[in-house]
């Protein structure tokens, strides 16, 4: 009985933990040619953290952050209203918003690309309205593509957050005549804060390493962390595995930084709130 958990743990150690460890060791190798682990130095990291690569890292983090925030803002009103529907209607709407999650990612991005190319139907129609945007081969196009690609991922986690929320406080506020804005600002957002952060991270972290969208929609003209990492491993130029490894460690560190700062922010707000709560009750 005791050994039953072992195969799974060994598997994860061999194919998740060991690769991670190996990437760390590889990133500490000085030259592109090093294929074995020999020495330790920080040359690759100092290269990754100076321009032009530092700018690419900052751009990617900023773009993913904004795109994930936009996805959250787009999904919140819909998911909230679904979570308050009667259960039959709810299942139908939830299914409609969940199905795109099961549609293949490569296919969805390609389908988007076809419609929004300069000769595509959508961009022609938009040009007809006088809206001439560069939806492909531009930073803006990649940004919109990220939003389109990751939108379906947001609905289920958000839904479970809203579904679990305690309703009594909200009903009390409504009875006492709080406006919609007041209800959101004082009750719904504080109450579901940690769930909102989790859903945000669920989208932000994979966006940060996205390769497919910048490559296909950006047409090779938009450099992101994902395309740079891919280039170091499979690119047409000279591969540089240690540098690619260093870039992917930077990716993980950036994701971890956002994660931990959100934790710190959350716990501080919580303690502030509870402090205010206890003061209010002392009075």
């Amino acid at each position: 009985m005791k050994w039953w958990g072992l195969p799974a743990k060994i598997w994860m150690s061999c194919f998740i933990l060991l690769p991670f460890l190996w990437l760390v060791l590889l990133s500490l190798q000085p030259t592109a040619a090093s294929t074995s682990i020999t020495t330790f130095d920080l040359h690759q990291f100092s290269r990754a953290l100076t321009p032009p690569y530092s700018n690419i890292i900052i751009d990617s983090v900023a773009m993913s952050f904004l795109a994930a925030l936009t996805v959250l803002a787009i999904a919140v009103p819909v998911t909230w209203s679904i979570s308050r529907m009667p259960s039959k209607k709810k299942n139908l709407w939830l299914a409609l918003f969940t199905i795109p999650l099961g549609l293949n990612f490569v296919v969805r991005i390609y389908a988007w690309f076809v419609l929004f190319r300069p000769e595509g139907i959508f961009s022609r129609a938009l040009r007809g309205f006088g809206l001439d945007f560069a939806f492909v081969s531009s930073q803006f196009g990649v940004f919109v593509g990220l939003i389109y690609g990751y939108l379906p991922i947001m609905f289920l986690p958000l839904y479970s957050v809203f579904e679990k929320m305690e309703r009594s406080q909200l009903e009390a506020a409504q009875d006492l005549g709080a406006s919609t804005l007041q209800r959101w600002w004082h009750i719904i957002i504080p109450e579901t804060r940690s769930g909102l952060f989790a859903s945000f991270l669920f989208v932000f972290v994979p966006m940060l390493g996205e390769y497919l969208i910048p490559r296909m929609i950006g047409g090779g003209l938009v450099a992101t962390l994902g395309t740079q990492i891919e280039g170091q491993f499979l690119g047409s130029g000279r591969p540089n595995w240690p540098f690619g490894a260093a870039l992917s460690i930077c990716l993980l560190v950036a994701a971890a930084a956002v994660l931990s700062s959100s934790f710190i922010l959350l716990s501080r707000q919580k303690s502030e709130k509870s402090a205010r709560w206890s003061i209010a009750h002392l009075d």
Partner: protein
Amino acid sequence: MVNRTSRLKKIGILVWSILLLFILYCPVLFLVVFGFNASSYALRWEGFSLRWYEKTLENPEMLSALFNSIMVATVSTCFAVVIGFLYALWSHRQQNKKIAAAGDSLMSLPLFMPEIVIAIGLLVVVSQIFRPAASNIGIPLDSMGSIILGHTTLALGYAALVLRNRFKCYDLQQELAAIDLGATPRQVFFRVMLPQLVPGFAAASCLSFAVSLDDFYVSYFLSTGGSSLQTLPIYIWSLQGRRAMTPEINVVSSLLLFIAAFFFAAGLLLSRIDATGKQSGKDHL
């Protein structure tokens, strides 16, 4: 007054939802419809025809990609479900909750790591450690083998999670009753425990299969090592990069869409069925 603003709000939300659904579904619908195009160009509509379906279903390159995808998905689903089941059983029986929780977070790592990092990590260890080690003992680890290893890792995260949650609604009373009535451990395992877990197995298998079919990153990075091996998503990716685009890409995409979405939907629905066979309404995902 209050009524009017709340009605306006409702209409606003409805319009917003329909707009979102339109944006989410429209590109994919266009793609599927253009697979029935008579024209030789992917972008110009010249009437309905099944010409490209016939052509695509005879294309050996596409058939081998389809075969590879199904082969990889089947093998890695078997691995993932068996290993995931053993893990779920261990985690369920583990008395020490802290140890069980640590195990659960180890198993959920593939769900939270960026896929590109998982993929290059696998590329690095496969080509620098596992492939040399395997050839030392006389086993060639080719692209197919390494892609199977990678897909099993991704699928195992989901399979372990689904089966683990399945055990949470496991009815221990039945097992105790069986033991009281003199059932041997083997009988308890096969007659009491496994039947209760059938929906969980089905859900875990379907989801693992869908995860493997859908995967792009792991196949993309591992397929270039040694002989290049194409799965369906990689084949679509390579078609997209070619100069002359025929409706063939639409046909291949539609096929992949339907197969993968079927398994995904089945997995999701099955994970909502509880042990008595009723819809529990609660996701076990």
